[in-house]
């Protein structure tokens, strides 16, 4: 079951780190970084059911 309530202890710290990680990258590099991040996190999670839920929520957020 995908957690959608707040689960990050310091949300602002994470968000800042996320944006900082992209600093000085080209758009293409940023796209590849984002993709790498998704792949790393997906592998860490390792649960297809949770991942499918996340994929559905993510898609619904842009194409309801």
């Amino acid at each position, binding site marked *: 079951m995908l957690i959608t309530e707040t689960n990050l202890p310091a949300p602002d710290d994470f968000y800042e780190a996320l944006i900082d990680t992209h600093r000085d990258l080209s758009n*293409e590099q940023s*796209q*590849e*970084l*984002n*993709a*790498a991040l*998704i*792949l*790393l996190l997906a*592998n860490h999670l390792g649960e297809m059911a949770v991942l499918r839920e996340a994929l559905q929520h993510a898609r619904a957020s842009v194409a309801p």
Partner: protein
Amino acid sequence: MGDIDFQAMEFAYEKHADQEASELARHRVVIVGAGPVGLTTALDLARQGVRVVLLDDDYRLSTGSRAICFSKRTLEIWDRLGVGQRMMDKGVSWNVGKVFFREQEVWRFDLLPEPGHRRPAFINLQQYYAEGYLYEQASQEPNIELRWKNKVVAVEHGEDGVTLSVETPDGAYRLHADWLVACDGARSPVRKLIGQESHGRIFRDRFLIADVKMQADFPTERWFWFDPPFHPNQSVLLHRQPDNVWRIDFQLGWNADPVEAVKPENVLPRIRALLGPDTGFELEWVSVYTFACERMDKFRHGRIVFAGDSAHRVSPFGARGANSGVQDAENLAWKLKLVLAGRAPETLIDSYAVEREYAADENILNSSRATDFITPKSDVSRSFRNAVLNLAKTHPFARSLVNSGRLSLPATYAGSPLNTPDADAFSGRMVPGAVALDAPVESRGAPDWWLGQLDGEFVLALFCGDALPGRDTLQALQALRLAPVPVKAVLVAGPQCDLSALPGELPAVIDREGCLGQRYDAQPGTAYLIRPDQHIAARWRAFDAAAVAAAVNRATGRA
């Protein structure tokens, strides 16, 4: 002795008595198409005692190297048909693949990391050699009658078979086949004649094949580059073939002009960019291809059965085209033989369709996924692809996502109606429906291979450990031979077992290294029923003649 130039061979058309017969000539099996699949089907049927007529509209074998990667499973099938060693002797064996991204190697994989198999993961061999050796074997087989320049132009489907109209240099004639096997390729004329088509995806990409003859010191491995400096934004695949010929596939993209792309002035710079300016080479063969992943909805239409590219097509990454066609041939041959002999109902042929349509779906799925990785269809797909390749250098998890082709493995017919589901507990890979794994064994005092014992009939393998089974069991094993569908019993004994008391007619092997027992999760008493195509039909922890008979009935469509 030098090699035969199979590409230059021309086969004479010969007029056959059927063409002037006053009555319609009748044959049990007619096969259309003398490619690797048609020839394999013909050889398998012929060796099982079925006479076949093999028609081909041409008078030559394959032009160009075409399908070059023949899998372990294909070699095992050809071993059973007596032609595997010849392929091995000429072919280049390989197990290792390497993947490069931009300037760096990101992954190296071994497709056969364990010893104890007779055959390697793959050999590379030009299709004309493979066809040439199959042809030579077929031409020595009295049960096969090859007719060149015989073009099927009409088929009439009846209850008891198919009537064909065939055009020859001497005009047209008709013949009747109880069964027609269409191995006539991706553009299958037989498929068109019965108004059927394949459905699937066409990929909007073009690839250039260049076969290059050169002295080079690349190792005998499959090398795949994503976005290399010498061919930016595209992929390149390098394979070694016999005779110092190297296959290079350059991805060109959809917008490439196929006529311009094959001109030497456009091909040579691409090759020089890969090899460097100092490597001398000659161009052997150049071609541009596009590809599709598609299949017929049904592989059986009454008495017409489709096998190989006529039934299904895949993209070339994964070597799943010719290899799956050879597996079609093997699946069909024993079933047709039993049906023709009246030992199995005609519905057994439906299981060919069920099993091979399942296998085709698996092949299409694998090759479509590889194609989507190699040829990303969108910017974001390319970003993910590149991210996988970037991560693969240092993060093992990402290597499992790298997809330069999931190389051909035989399908496990897990849901097949021919399987007897397990009633006893087993672990390991040898589930009902799987292809029997090979292992080294000792037979009549000499080193041998397990698959060599599975030679085209049903086999009941009984693992007996270090003590021979009792007399009753031995008699029951011998009696299996006398059943309507004969079963050959093979005893698999441990190294301490005294085989001298064994009745002479009962074949036995010694599992000296314990490798076979381990691969089959065997204990003393374990029994496996293996189909003529070397797929597992059933397994038990103890031998029971009635259970074996029931499983044979099931595996032959009689239950």
